[in-house]
Structure formats: C-alpha cells, structure tokens
C-alpha cells in the first residue's frame, strides 16, 4: 500500500468513525422516545376522534341524561387523560350541534375543547373555557389565577391512583412510599439498592404544570427532586395516573409497581388501601356568570355523572358511589 493510499484510508477512517459515533448518539437519544405502539395509548393521547360525543363509533360511555342543557352551554375542557369523561358528559347533556370537530381538533366555536391541563387552566382563567376537568392546579396555575383576579372553584368529581411505572423487564415490583421519595431525592441512585439489577436509576419527571407533575410535587412535599445527570444510561422510573397508562401496561413493556405492597387496581383504590389517590375536579371561575355551570357540576356528582366516571375506568367519589 503506497503512502497516498494510506493517507486516504486514514482520512476515511476518521470520517467513518465520526459517522458511527453520531449514529450511536442518535440511537441512544431517540430510541427511548419512539412512540408507544399501544393502540389504546395512542387513542388516549392523540386520537380525539375515537372518543367523540354523538358518534356511534365512539368509545365513550354512552349515557343519555334527562338533565339537558339547551342554551348558554358552558365550554368544557380539560386534561387529555380525562377527555373521555368530558366527551361523555357532553354526549349525555348537550345538544348535538354543540360540538364541531374538523377531523383533527375541535373548532373554535365547539363547546367541547381539549387543550390539556396547562392550557386548560389558562383558558379557564382567561375566560376561554367555562369548566375544565383536571387534576389539582399547580402553584403557578393558582398564582396565574390570582394575578388575573380569578378565584377558582374546585369541585371534586372523581379520583384516581397516582402510580409509578418501570420498564417491564425491571425485576422490582414493589417499593415503599419512603423508597420512592428517596429515589427522587437522589438518595437511591442504583436499582441494586432496591433489590434490582446493578443499573443506575433514571427518575423521570414531567413538564411543570402538567397534572401528574403537580401531583408528584405534592407527593414529595418539601423534599427537593434531584435528577442523576448520568441517569439516562440507567433504567427509568416514571409516574402517571392509572387510567392513562392502564392500556399501555396491559399491552406494552411497562408495569405499574405496588406501593407498600398494594397494587393500584380499582378495588385497592376504591377501598383506600392504595396509598396515593388524587381527586380530579370540575374547575370553574367563581365569578363566571354562566347559569349552567353549577347545575352541570352538580349533575356530574349525580348517579348518572358518577356512572360515566366509573364506567370510563376512573373511581367515583366515595360518598356518591351508588
């Protein structure tokens, strides 16, 4: 091999080395972010049209109520995880022409909207939505309301378990509440400390203002969340609300873990043995003059409203459960 050939080979080796390195970085960063293929999860997070009201093919709980609203219809909005409930409420109580859907999203004049938690809280303060169905507001959302002179009324209409999730191949099935707090405070940083494999723990968090992140901050109370900067090479733990992940738990490579030995199934949530259960609320501006807001939220707590919540897969309010 002459000198020129060796020089060209050396240059090619450098370029190929970088190409291989960049490909590896891309794979490392993006592989965990591939969309989950579970159809139920996709439906809950993206496909609004699978839970449309007034649609024979809809997957919502189809209840027709004697309580009907005909005019001054409140705009109802909320968290994506609670959208099937919002839609079923509208289906039960609103006239059919109250909803318009353009194939991908609700049009501006539709009385059913789906902005998700952060935007929904802003919308109810700004007056763009009248009632939102969400988890409790974050401190920032309460502050935004206060800054705008809005006092929010939170009516608890149902409850749901706050669950922790790990990869399906993680041998850890049960953790105590204290262990979870120690994971998120950075005290435990390897799964081997908790009976698992010798892998770093990657404690995942959500966007500030999302319903589950607010619930997590409430769970941690005054304990600061610390993330391991090298955790991304380890095995993750995350959190969500049970209903939102139940399908992916059934069909995907994710499992919910028991807390203090109690698995978050519906029976354990309803009887109070699962330790972290959060209410979700119908939230409205106390000064909103729409006359249908109060009757509508009261109907949500009626037998029909609570039946929709239960049959959708959530837990009705204990006192109202039939």
């Amino acid at each position: 091999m002459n000198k020129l050939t060796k020089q060209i080979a050396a240059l090619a080796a450098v370029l190929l080395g970088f190409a291989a390195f960049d490909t590896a970085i891309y794979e490392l960063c993006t592989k965990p972010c591939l969309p989950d293929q579970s159809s139920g999860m996709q439906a809950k997070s993206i496909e609004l049209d699978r839970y449309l009201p007034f649609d024979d093919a809809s997957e919502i709980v189809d209840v027709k109520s004697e309580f009907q609203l005909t005019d001054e219809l409140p705009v109802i909005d909320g968290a994506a995880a609670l959208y099937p409930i919002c839609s079923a409420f509208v289906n039960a109580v609103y006239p059919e022409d109250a909803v318009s859907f353009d194939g991908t999203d609700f049009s501006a004049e539709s009385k059913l909207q789906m902005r998700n938690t952060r935007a929904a809280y802003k919308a109810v303060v700004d007056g763009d939505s009248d009632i939102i169905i969400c988890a409790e507001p974050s401190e920032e959302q309460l502050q935004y309301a206060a800054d705008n002179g809005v006092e929010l009324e939170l009516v608890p209409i149902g409850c749901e378990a706050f669950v922790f999730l790990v990869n399906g191949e993680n041998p850890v099935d049960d953790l105590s509440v204290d262990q979870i707090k120690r994971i998120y405070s950075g005290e435990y940083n390897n799964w081997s400390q908790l009976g698992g494999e010798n892998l770093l723990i990657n404690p995942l968090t959500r966007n500030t203002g999302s319903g589950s992140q607010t619930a997590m901050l409430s769970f941690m109370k005054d304990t600061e969340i610390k993330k391991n900067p090298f955790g991304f090479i380890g095995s993750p733990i995350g959190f969500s609300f049970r209903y939102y992940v139940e399908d992916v738990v059934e069909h995907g490579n994710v499992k919910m873990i028991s807390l203090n030995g109690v698995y978050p199934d519906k029976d354990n949530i309803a009887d109070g043995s699962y330790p972290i259960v959060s209410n979700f609320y119908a939230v409205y501006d106390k000064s909103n003059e729409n006359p249908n807001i109060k009757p509508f939220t009261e109907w949500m707590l009626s037998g029909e409203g609570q039946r929709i919540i239960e049959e959708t897969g959530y837990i009705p309010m204990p006192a109202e459960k039939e």
Partner: protein
Amino acid sequence: MNDKIFKRLLLMCTAAGCIATIILFIITMIMYKDCSIISYIANGR
C-alpha cells in the same frame, strides 16, 4: 499528497466531525425534549 496537506486535511476532517456531532446532539435534544414518559420507560431498559 505531502505530509503538510495530509495533516491539514486530517485536522479539517476531525473539526468537521466534532462540529457535526455537536449540531446533531443539539438538534436531537431539541426534537425529542417532549418525549413521552411512557414511551421512554417502555423502550428503555
């Protein structure tokens, strides 16, 4: 190719590779910053 030109080309290739790596890393972080927590757990370890 004399040694001087070769070293210069080698340096340029290395610099280009480093720059491409940094740009790729930044673009990847921006594109995937809203990665679903569920997908991350399901596709992770």
